[in-house]
């Protein structure tokens, strides 16, 4: 992954999201050791403090936990937790914006639903 420095999102948030993605795709499984801040710093050419902050976001949400002297490990049910949270927060926020944009473009409720159905169908066909 290449970080997008111009993005609105701070780099550490991008790091946290990338790590969540790794957990979601089960590249890192439950109870497995997650990358250290130094590994992350080297992987993404970022300052280790930035990487640490990304890890801290996950730690704050208990997605990872610290084992003394051993590093950070993925919590049990981390994947489930991420899925739930993303559904409620990220998807919720996106839908909010989607609805706002639809309103601005004067798209009716049924029209919007139709468009969503359409995209889902297309994805299923693929």
């Amino acid at each position, binding site marked *: 992954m290449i970080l997008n*420095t111009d993005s609105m999102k*701070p*780099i550490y948030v991008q790091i946290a999201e990338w790590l969540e993605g790794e957990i979601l795709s089960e590249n890192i499984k439950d109870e497995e050791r997650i990358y250290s801040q130094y590994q992350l710093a080297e992987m993404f*050419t*970022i300052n*280790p*403090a*930035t990487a640490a902050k990304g890890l801290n976001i996950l730690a704050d949400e208990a997605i990872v936990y610290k084992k003394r002297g051993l590093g950070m490990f993925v919590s049990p049910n981390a994947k489930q937790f991420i899925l739930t949270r993303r559904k409620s927060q990220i998807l919720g926020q996106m839908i909010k914006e989607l609805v706002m944009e639809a309103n601005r473009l004067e798209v009716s409720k049924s029209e919007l639903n139709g468009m969503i159905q359409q995209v889902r169908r297309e994805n299923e066909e693929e």
Partner: protein
Amino acid sequence: MGVIHGVDLTKSYGKLKAIDHLTFEIEQNKITGLIGRNGSGKTTLLKMVAGYLIPTSGELKVFSENPFNSLEASANSILIDDTMTFSDSFTLVDILKEMTPFYANWNSSLALGLFDYYSLNPKQPHSNLSKGSKSTFNSIIGIASRAPLTIFDEPTTGMDSAARKDFYRALLKDYLEYPRTIILSSHLLSELEGILEDILLINQGTKRLHLPALELKELAVGLRGNAQAVISFVEGKKIIYQEDFAQGSLYVVLKRELVQQQLEQIRQSGLEVLSVATDDLCVYLTAKTKGGIDDVFKKG
């Protein structure tokens, strides 16, 4: 723990104050970016830190010692800039060997490894190098020296973008392996922002900001939209930058903390809430006058 302490530091050349009552502290084993526009006093400050120049007034301590003419400070620091000169008696590889006895932590294998990687001509004298190759070569010395205080003054001048990326990556990797205090000066923040921990922004010899790089990104917020609506929200607040955007439209930049509570409200009133690119923010913070280049044309 701080490695460099500056208190009320001033350096003047005649009437011109290159550094003007600057108080700052650089912390140990952090990568700090010294950001400022051309002529903002970056080089003067770094040369004082490296012990080349005497402060006109104020106090400066590096490793708790006055760096000017200090052997101790010199042994623990290195300043890499484009004025570094080497005798034509030395080939590039000679120079790398010659540096070895001076710097206690010098990493020869790293120096030669980087040298090979950049495929510079080992038999060439330093004075014949192109600007970019010179910067590249000098940066090898800076990285390999592993000086407890390593200072780079505009290290990527003339380098192509691939070489810049390689430099930042090499510096970071060696920093991870061997943490030390590093100062990087640049007029351009964006490309090195990622590897920085702290940012010291100076303008006309004075400090504008000194904060962790992570905070800079969230320091300011931009509001764009209907001029009246924007004004109603920012009334009475200190505006960092403002620009007439389109007919009846206004773009303002101000500290995020001033409007943090109102952000939701602002969004709902149809204004765009934008994050401000750090580079732009630096430009706004170091602008000599209010407004931008556009004002020149308006008046004309």
